[in-house]
């Protein structure tokens, strides 16, 4: 979706603000929002792509004026309500009003270290050979799906070169919508600054994205 999250190439956000002490969290609630998001993620009630999609689905104005952990909090609220784990009425009341729905598992404190160590690898066995090899010229698709996509707007319809072939990885565009992992070959594709940004661009800039095979066509 062309949401408020797709920021590459936008103007007007001002200088990059670096904090003197760089705290991980700016308030106690940010710590809890972080921990709750990870704990619910580990429950198996949803996957990482659904989680990202819930955040980017915030209306652009709201996304851009919410702080980072506000966006995470709103993402969790959207997922628990959409999946029927928590009702809107419960969020309003701040208390459980109905029995819980079943979820695959509950992350216990004693299992946190093991769960984090396992992580969430996205590589899957290859069912067929890669369509592209290092050095191949490709062009990215021009596409504007209303659902989840990891092809940023600034890199759509651009000619680039395959630089790395990463193996076969879970496809977020389907996984975010509960339509399965549908794994695809994943590539790093590099573009010149001139191709992305036009003739005013710095000629010594090269930008790459990681692109699933269906984002690409032969150039």
């Amino acid at each position: 979706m062309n949401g408020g999250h797709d920021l590459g190439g936008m103007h007007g956000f001002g200088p990059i603000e670096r904090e003197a002490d760089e705290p991980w969290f700016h308030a106690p609630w940010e710590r809890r929002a972080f921990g709750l998001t990870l704990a619910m993620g580990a429950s198996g009630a949803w996957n990482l792509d659904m989680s990202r999609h819930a955040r980017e689905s915030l209306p652009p104005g709201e996304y851009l004026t919410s702080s980072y952990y506000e966006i995470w909090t709103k993402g969790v609220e959207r997922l628990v309500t959409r999946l029927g784990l928590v009702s809107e009425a419960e969020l309003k009341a701040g208390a459980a009003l109905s029995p819980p729905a079943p979820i695959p598992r509950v992350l216990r404190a004693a299992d946190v270290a093991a769960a984090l160590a396992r992580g969430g690898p996205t590589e899957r066995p290859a069912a067929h050979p890669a369509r592209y090899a290092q050095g191949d010229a490709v062009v990215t698709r021009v596409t504007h799906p209303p659902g989840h996509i990891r092809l940023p707007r600034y890199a759509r319809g651009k000619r680039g070169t395959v630089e790395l072939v990463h193996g076969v990885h879970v496809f977020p565009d389907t996984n975010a919508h509960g339509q399965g992992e549908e794994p695809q070959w994943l590539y790093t594709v590099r573009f010149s600054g001139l191709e992305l940004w036009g003739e005013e661009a710095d000629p010594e800039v090269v930008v790459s994205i990681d692109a699933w095979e269906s984002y690409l066509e032969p150039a």
Partner: protein
Amino acid sequence: MSGDHGRRHGAHDHHHHDHEGALSPMDLRVRALESILVEKGYVDPAAVDELIETYESRVGPRNGARVVAKAWADPAFRERLRADATEAIVSLGYIGRQGEHMVAVWNTPDEHNMVVCTLCSCYPWTVLGLPPTWYKSAPYRSRAVLDPRGVLAEFGVALPPETRIRVWDSTAEIRYLVIPMRPEGTQGWSEEALAGLVTRDSMIGTGLPHDPASVAAAESGP
């Protein structure tokens, strides 16, 4: 560091209220959410504590600094890191979430690497810990791909105009770790001393390692 807290963006304004005693709307909202999730049995609050504790105290950029220092000092490890960064990094014990698929990218005199996630905040947690706020912010995410040289200038990094800037936008689950160039004048340094030169920003690509002369001066200072 700007340290200019009076000039924050609207999105950060609420931070000022969080220190004033009364619970902020977000504080109330997250408390409500946690109460419901715990009451329904979806979340173990002790697991939430443990997750916070892990990323606040146990994981951080010193992990990445050790990887870089070893790559500088140990040719066999350097080759391993080039061949399969995930395996090489796991061999040092840095394993897990947001580090499942690692690629090391190497600065040279001709090319400087820099990492961003324009779509969200993808970052190599196992080696760098949680990202700083600026990395997740709209100013960095919007301009790192459009004007990386300008971004570097804001970080005080001035590269020769002929140095190519190579920006990696982490749009998938591959996580990139920048291996800065080993500073001149560090022959014979131990891995531990080398790691002391490696800054977090130098592993994102928005900074360079510390100058060994300034570190040596600070150590022998008054």
